[in-house]
């Protein structure tokens, strides 16, 4: 079973992402900020990380940078979950090593389609 890490400081959003992915048969872990996510990611190997950008303690961009620097996450798809679809934000994410982004709002189908796209 593919393991996905969902990172968002908003409980409702995290629950929605997690629930949707679980329903589709993925194993999902949740984290409320970048730091929590990083600890989890080091302790487990995830096949995909979906992270919000704006979060307290450690934001999503920093998280992606940190993850990408780890050998275990060199090629793992890291997706940004964001309402900001401005070219600068996307560029910033890409520079940090993000694979791509899902723009909020999204519905469960869009989320799953994107997850399938990168998980195969």
């Amino acid at each position, binding site marked *: 079973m593919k393991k996905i890490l969902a990172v968002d400081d908003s409980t409702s959003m995290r629950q929605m992402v997690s629930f949707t992915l679980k329903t589709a048969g993925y194993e999902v872990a949740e984290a409320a900020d970048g730091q929590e996510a990083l600890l989890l990611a080091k302790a487990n190997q995830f096949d995909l990380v979906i992270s919000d950008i704006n979060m307290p303690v450690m934001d999503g961009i920093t998280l992606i940078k940190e993850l990408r620097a780890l050998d275990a996450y060199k090629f793992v798809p890291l997706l940004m979950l964001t309402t900001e679809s401005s070219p600068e934000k996307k560029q910033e994410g890409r520079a940090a090593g993000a*694979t791509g982004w899902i723009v909020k709002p999204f519905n469960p189908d869009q989320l799953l389609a994107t997850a399938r796209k990168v998980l195969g």
Partner: protein
Amino acid sequence: MDIDLSQFSQVFFEESLEGLDIMESELLEINIDNLNHESINTIFRAAHSIKGGSATFGFNQVANFTHLLETLLDDIRDGKRQLSALHVDMLLQSVDILRAMIDALMNDSEYQSEQLQSLSAQFEQQLAQQPTSEQSEQLLEANTQESEAQETNTQETSTEEKAQLDAADTQATLWQIRFVPGVDILRCGNDPSYMFTELQQLGKYHIKLNDVSYPGFDDFDPEVCSLQWTITLLTDSPLDRLKEVFEWVEDECQLDYLTLERNPEQEATWFSQQPSQTAEANNNDQATEQLDLGATETSNANTDGIAEFDFSQAVAEAFNFDDEITSSLNDAIEPSAPIKEPSAKLSKPSAQQEQASTAPANNSLLAEVADLTVIQAIDADNPTQATSTNDGAAKQTSTATKQAVTKTSESSSTIRVGINKVDQLINMVGELIITQAMLGQIGQQETIDDDMMLDLRMGLEQLSNHTRELQESVMKIRMLPISFAFNRFPRLIHDISKQLGKKVDLVFNGEETELDKTVMEKIVDPLVHLVRNALDHGIEMPEVRRAQGKSEMGTISLNAYHRGGAIIIEIIDDGAGLNTKKIRAIAEQKQLISASDNLADDEINQLIFHPGFTTADEVSDLSGRGVGMDVVKRNITDLNGTINLQSQSGQGCKITINLPLTLAILDGQLVRIGEHIYVVPLVAIHESLQVTANQVNQLGNNQEVIHLREEFIPLVRIYQQFNHAPDAKQPQDGIVMIVDNNDKKVGLLVDELLSQQQVVIKNLEDNYTKIAGVSGATILGDGTVALIIDVNSLAQLAGIGVNKDHAA
């Protein structure tokens, strides 16, 4: 995928309300001249989360409005715009509006207000002002693009459907896409195979690996992508949709999109390969034949320096680090290529269906498509169907949301409890179960010897310890820091002081002091009233303060602390204090006191608690001190609390509220009157004593008083009020408890003092009916019901109240 988003609504509402509280408190503390970046970040994050959630869960009104806030905050955060006092004000108003919106959603109604429109207009006006005009244009553009993209999506879907119906692809375009990925593409987790898979779903598809400068084994770096491809695609999808596939990597790749003239022969060659691989399930022989053909073609092509083979193979090659491309080409025929997996088939039914219409000559294909159509019908998750039903799904979701909200609003009163408190509770229950098991074992014995008796006693002792601890843990769950009540005051002070033109500093002490949730809910209104009064009537205008040598900035302090089993809340202002002369004049006018009464200032000041008493010349929209003070007092008394007032002219006013920590449990003194047992709240008791006959004096109207240390304390014979037969008919034969009655003392005559213990309060009104003189009931250890005495109403019952008789 059919997911009911409404299941997340309640969490979203709670979270949004929390976010709004955070926004509000940050906004109130913000210093425009010396902006704290983290504070703006926090406000932005809250607005941002609300927007993201509301848009996702289908609350568009909230989403649209928060979008305005977010845009403004983003500019401020990025330093593109200067935060102004106006902005803070607008944002604070937004917090109110958003709260109202969410409340409305929680109650399944719609929020409507002109305020929303005017504030939205104000935001738009602000945003339209430079320096962000450029940005907002961009935003607009992005929005249009987004909606256009959505339109094309729907168009695409409908075209797809049409194509299926017509079984013709005359409208399809033949695209040639040259895809030269940047060398770093793998390093950001992008894999060209994702994109190929996605393209494959859009139409008929053929991929060719271009001649590449393959570095050879020695120089091969698996992290570097050194391959490039040409993809030929026959599709109805517009260019935008094709570009979307490469959206994530477009900046790092070279991508050329060319339209080709349709050429049936060429197409037959291009597109014959791919279906042959998926066809094996239906027609093995034919598939093998075709595959063989494909293999030959490929190896031929390779001698020309052009490899032509399946994309998945190409990617597999790149990742297998195999320098012998030709040698492994045969592997392309092996059924291991991802495209042959059933999931790959399922994920591209539309492509397959289309193929059926374009290549009707190919029998095996038709058979395959028929098969796939069946699979598609079964598989509700397939992407094509999902897009086409998007609209319907959204509608369903919104109806479902409404239903869920109705469901949840019925049980809207929830409590957030720290996990450590719950853990503690679970621990205690665990201990209790162990003790129970131990006692159970003893209980099973037929006879009990001395040793076991000892065990039994120990077990019972443990049981009582655990029960007490469990009780404490349970009580803690209902305890919240008083900051929950205090948190609303910064905003209140901000608004009122602005309205009145006063300068006030609000100081909190002991915000972390915990209080039962039910008490908290009931104390908030009285507190608001008192704080508002302190600001409206206590704190003077800045110029008046300056003239009196005080600092222009007044101070209102809210203090909370525990004392004994009670919580003390103080509201202290350094304003003008009460106008005792005026209060006296009004009291005389209302004939509450007579001109000849000799009263201390303190006693006169207490008169503002008298019902209907007001000192305000005109009742302003903020209440006058006195208006409703009786209500404040009654509310506090109903909570078994007391309120006390101290005022000093020109120095300010201090109001002290004394409340029990909880309404569920009470520290009580058990007393006996005849054969009846009553509970007197411990907080009310000053002292208990035996009096002598000469300490008891008779006043007019049958009122007895006890003379105690220069004080005359009215006496209530409880047995008379409740019609009991007592042991002691005379005060000197029994015990007199001196208890607190609205800051005045009252003596209660009882026969005997029993133990002191915590009692669980049972509401009499719910279970029986309201009884004067009694505030509730409890069940004692032996199972009997004992009534809890309400001193104030008992005193009233006995004809003792706060009136001039009593004051005299």
